[in-house]
């Protein structure tokens, strides 16, 4: 059986989740690989959530928020914009491929864009295969 990546998507309530909803009500097809968690704001996504998803076996993590300037809470997405590059530096040090964790701005009217992002991300992760963090930590137990 071919590998199907499991992607966790954290979507802000006001723009991106509504955008994903629009993709659904507009009957736009996109891969079923994404498992969506709705949060009130992209700034609610503690970097811990991303690491935790990977540690628990996710093959990719997608974070979506309102476009800069459009945040329902004025500047929540700017905080996400600042955290993400630092989080990416950590992930790089851990050896997590760049394609596996992604930040995208998706507005409530961008159903097609949401579908395109999920499709593109799934296609990029599939050739990488499963994320090796979880099996690696299990193998450590056997070392000793």
């Amino acid at each position: 059986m071919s590998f199907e990546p499991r992607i966790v998507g954290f979507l802000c309530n006001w723009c991106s989740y509504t955008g994903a909803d629009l993709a659904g009500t507009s009957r736009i097809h996109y891969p079923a690989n994404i498992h969506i968690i709705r949060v009130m704001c992209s700034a609610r996504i503690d970097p811990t959530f991303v690491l935790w998803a990977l540690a628990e076996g996710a093959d990719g993590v997608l974070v979506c928020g309102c476009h800069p300037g459009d945040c329902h809470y004025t500047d929540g997405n700017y905080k996400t914009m600042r955290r993400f590059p630092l989080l990416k530096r950590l992930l790089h040090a851990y050896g997590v491929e760049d394609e596996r964790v992604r930040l995208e701005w998706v507005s409530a009217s961008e159903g097609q864009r949401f579908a395109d992002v999920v499709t593109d991300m799934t296609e990029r992760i599939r050739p990488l295969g499963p994320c090796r963090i979880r099996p690696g930590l299990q193998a450590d137990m056997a070392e000793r």
Partner: protein
Amino acid sequence: MSEKKKLQIALYWGAACGGCDVAVLDTDAFILDVAALADIRLWPIAVDGKYADVEALADGELDAAFFNGAVRNSENEHIARLLRQKSKVLVAFGSCAHLGGIPGLANFVTRDDIFRTAYLDNPSIEPGNRTVPVPSTPVNGHVLEIPKFYQRVYALDAVVPVDYYLPGCPPAPNQVKAAILAIATGNLPPRGSVVGASDRAVCEDCKREKSEKKISRFYRPWEIIQDPTKCLLEQGIVCLGPATRSGCGVRCPDTGQGCRGCYGPLPGVVDQGAKVVSSLASVIDSRDPEEIERILDAIPDFTAIAYRFGLPASLLQRRIRA
């Protein structure tokens, strides 16, 4: 009434620098009280007890064992298991035993990388010299063995159950003293507790003035004339105070150095590095992705700052190996 029996204790260093042992001695004259209060059955740096002496003890014969250092090799693990078996109370002493500590940063590289750097590719090694350690060497009909070097570093509680954690690199002398006295008097908190530390962030105990944090660049401490009354983060100096448990006495920020994070994450926090990401990124005053990258580039070796003391106990624990 029979004469009160002296406390039986052991101290051991795993993968450590020796600073934790010095922290015990930093209790000054109190160390003489310890000697009066307790028989020290093992303390490789200071007394003459041997592993065989500990192996000969009955299970649970020790009242307390203080284990500093991480678990890096099979010898560390052997002594961790031995002390767990022989001691009623096992204390993870200092950052390395608590979270993996600075030796834990080795989890960002592989065992082969370390071997190559230490024995083969180092500029200080004579060209062509290939003297390398091997697991066992026959000498005069005997076989000498060295401990197995593990693929990665572990915190103590990844190997054996730990009763108490005494954080710090090293733990503050007053906290060491308090912990030893607590064990001597039997006045102990619930097992699994972090002792000798508070449940607040370092910032809450830091006396510097704090207001809204908005910075346009990060500075190394020597690149800027500091305002000694103002929050270091607000001056652009990397400080891990918001993401670190207090109890140290705010020793670093008080002397103009940013908190390095050695007391580990706050209660309930699973990954200190992730919290460092949040707290450092949030102070940046920019809405331009390129400018944000430029500002962040001024932080040297960010991953080592974020996980300086806790990589083996973090969520992902180590770099993925091929």
